[in-house]
C-alpha cells in the first residue's frame, strides 16, 4: 500500500501543478513508400501512417482515463521528406506535404513533423525540393511542421544552408502575413537535430529508427516550480537534489505511459524526452522556476547559472528514472509559450542575447521569438549562425524558431493562439551581418580536444 502523502502528492501534481504528458508521438518510417508515381507515393505514405496511426488518439484517450493524467497531444513524426523527394519535381514534392496534412486530419493528430531536410554538409535534389516548397506547404497546411538541420558537430556548419533557411523563414512569414507570420512557428532550424525528438515543430523520424516507434514528452514546469517554492531557505545543493527527485517522478510517469502506449499500438517504445516544456497556462513556466530560485526576473544576472542547475538536475533525476531517455531532454525556453518569459521581456530583463547565452546550458535554442518584420534576411541568418555555433562547439542540440512578424515593430504585441501563446516583439541588434553571412560555404567541424 502507498502512503497517504504519496497518493496526495501525485494527485496534486496532476490537478494543481499542471503535470501532464505533453505528447505521445508516433514515429513512422516512410522509406519504403517511394514509388515512381507521386500519386502512388502519397497513397503509400498515407497507408503506412494510417496502419498504426489510426489508433493513436484512441490509445491516448484510454491511457488518460486509466491513469487520470492529461495527455495533451498525440502527434506523428515521419522520415525527413527530403529523403523521399529526390526523384520528384517541386510541384510533386508539395503533394507529399498535402498528403501529410490529409492523413494528420484523418487520424486526428494536431501536428505531423518531418517536412524536413538534412543539409548540414550539402544539398541533394530532394533537399532543394523540400527547402523550396517549405513556405508554400506551411502556408497552405495547418498541421505539417518543417525542420532543417544545418549543422552537426561532426560535419561543421553549412552557412549556405543557414542563408537558405533565413530566406525560407522570411518567405514563410510573408506568405502567412495575415496570421502575423504564424507559419514560422512550424519551422525549426537545427544543429545536431535529434532523430527521436517527440516535440513539435522539430520532430522527425530518423533513418536509424525502426518502421514505427512511440516517443513520449512529459511536462512539468509547474511541479518543479512548486518544489522550488517549498524550499525557500534551501541552499543550491539541497535545491538541486529536490529538483532531481521530482524529475524522477515526472519521468517515471512518462515512461509508464509511453511503454503502455507502444504496447497497445503494437510497436516499439523509443524514448522519454525529459524536457520541461512550458505552456501559456498560469504557473506552467520555466521562467517562473528561475524566478522562484531567487532571481527578480528571468534574465537577471545569475539566470544562466540557475538554468544550468535546473537542466542538469532534471537530466540526473530523469536518467535515473528511465534507461531510455532521448530527444531534446532539458528545459525549453520558448518566449511566447511561457508567460514568465514574456513578462521578463516586457520589463526589459530578457533580451535575445541573454536567451542565446541561456541556450548554451539548456536543451534547445532561440524558441518562439517574435522579431520585427523588417529584420533583414542576413540578420536572421546571423542570429541562426550564432545559435547553431553554440550547439556545434558544445556537441549538443540547438535550434532556432523565430518569427519575423510582417508589418510589426519591436514593442508591439502578437497573438499566435493556443499553446503558441502571445508575446511582445523583441528588439534585434541593428548592425549588419551581411558581409559575413554572404561569404557562404562551410564553417569546418570543430576540434574535439583542447576543450577550453
Amino acid at each position, binding site marked *: *500500500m502507498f502512503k497517504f502523502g504519496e497518493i496526495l502528492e501525485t494527485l496534486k501534481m496532476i490537478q494543481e501543478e499542471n503535470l501532464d504528458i505533453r505528447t505521445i508521438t508516433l514515429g513512422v518510417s516512410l522509406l519504403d513508400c517511394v514509388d515512381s508515381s507521386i500519386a502512388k507515393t502519397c497513397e503509400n505514405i498515407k497507408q503506412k501512417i494510417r496502419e498504426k496511426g489510426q489508433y493513436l488518439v484512441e490509445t491516448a484517450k484510454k491511457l488518460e482515463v*486509466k491513469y487520470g493524467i492529461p495527455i495533451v497531444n498525440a502527434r506523428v513524426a515521419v522520415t525527413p521528406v527530403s529523403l523521399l523527394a529526390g526523384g520528384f519535381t517541386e510541384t510533386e514534392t508539395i503533394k507529399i506535404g498535402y498528403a501529410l496534412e490529409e492523413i494528420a486530419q484523418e487520424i486526428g493528430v494536431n501536428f505531423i513533423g518531418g517536412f524536413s531536410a538534412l543539409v548540414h554538409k550539402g544539398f541533394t535534389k530532394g533537399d532543394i525540393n523540400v527547402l523550396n516548397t517549405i513556405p508554400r506547404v506551411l502556408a497552405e497546411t495547418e498541421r505539417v511542421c518543417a525542420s532543417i538541420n544545418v549543422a552537426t558537430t561532426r560535419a561543421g556548419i553549412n552557412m549556405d544552408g543557414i542563408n537558405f533557411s533565413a530566406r525560407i523563414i522570411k518567405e514563410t512569414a510573408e506568405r502567412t502575413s495575415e496570421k502575423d507570420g504564424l507559419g514560422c512557428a512550424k519551422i525549426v532550424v537545427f544543429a545536431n537535430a535529434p532523430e527521436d525528438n517527440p516535440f513539435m515543430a522539430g520532430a522527425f523520424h530518423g533513418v536509424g529508427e525502426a518502421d514505427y516507434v512511440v516517443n513520449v514528452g512529459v511536462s512539468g514546469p509547474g511541479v518543479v516550480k512548486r518544489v522550488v517554492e517549498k524550499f525557500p531557505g534551501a541552499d543550491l545543493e539541497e535545491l538541486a537534489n529536490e529538483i532531481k527527485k521530482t524529475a524522477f517522478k515526472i519521468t*517515471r510517469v512518462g515512461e*509508464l505511459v509511453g511503454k503502455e502506449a507502444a504496447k497497445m499500438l503494437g510497436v516499439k517504445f523509443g524514448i522519454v524526452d525529459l524536457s520541461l516544456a512550458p505552456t501559456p497556462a498560469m504557473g506552467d513556466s520555466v521562467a517562473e522556476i528561475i524566478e522562484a530560485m531567487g532571481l527578480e526576473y528571468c534574465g537577471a544576472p545569475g539566470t544562466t547559472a540557475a538554468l544550468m542547475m535546473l537542466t542538469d538536475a532534471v537530466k540526473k533525476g530523469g536518467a535515473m528514472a528511465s534507461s531510455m531517455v532521448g530527444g531534446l531532454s532539458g528545459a525549453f525556453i520558448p518566449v511566447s509559450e511561457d508567460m514568465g518569459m514574456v513578462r521578463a521581456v516586457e520589463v526589459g530583463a530578457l533580451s535575445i542575447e541573454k536567451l542565446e547565452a541561456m541556450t548554451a546550458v539548456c536543451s534547445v535554442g532561440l524558441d518562439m521569438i517574435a522579431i520585427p518584420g523588417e529584420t533583414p534576411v542576413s540578420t536572421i541568418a546571423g542570429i541562426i549562425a550564432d545559435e547553431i555555433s553554440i550547439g556545434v562547439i558544445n556537441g549538443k542540440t540547438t535550434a532556432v524558431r523565430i518569427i519575423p512578424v510582417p508589418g510589426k515593430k519591436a514593442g508591439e504585441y502578437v497573438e499566435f493562439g493556443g499553446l503558441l501563446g502571445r508575446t511582445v516583439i523583441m528588439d534585434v541588434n541593428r548592425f549588419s551581418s551581411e558581409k559575413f553571412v554572404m561569404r557562404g560555404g562551410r564553417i569546418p567541424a570543430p576540434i574535439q580536444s583542447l576543450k577550453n
Partner: protein
Amino acid sequence: MQEKALITVIGEDRVGIIAKVATLLAEANVNILDISQTITGGLFTMIMMVDITHCNLEFEALKKSLSDLGEQLNLKIEIQHENIFRAMHRI
C-alpha cells in the same frame, strides 16, 4: 493477473460517504482491499485500494459512475490505476 486501482475521495465530511462508495463498488463487483481515511480541518480524505480484475464495468464507465456519485455528494472522487503510483513512488 490482479489489476488494482486507487480511489481517492476528497471533500466535506458527512454521514454515509464510505457506505455509498462501497455500495457502488459492490454493484460493480469491485473488491475493496484496503481503506484509509483522515479528516483535517473538516476536509474528509479517503483512499481505497481496490481490485478491479473482475469489475463488470469498463474502467471508463466505473470512473464515470464514481465521479457522478461524487457530484451528488459534493465530493471529488477519482480512480486511477495503481501503476502510476508505483511508477512515481517506488524505485
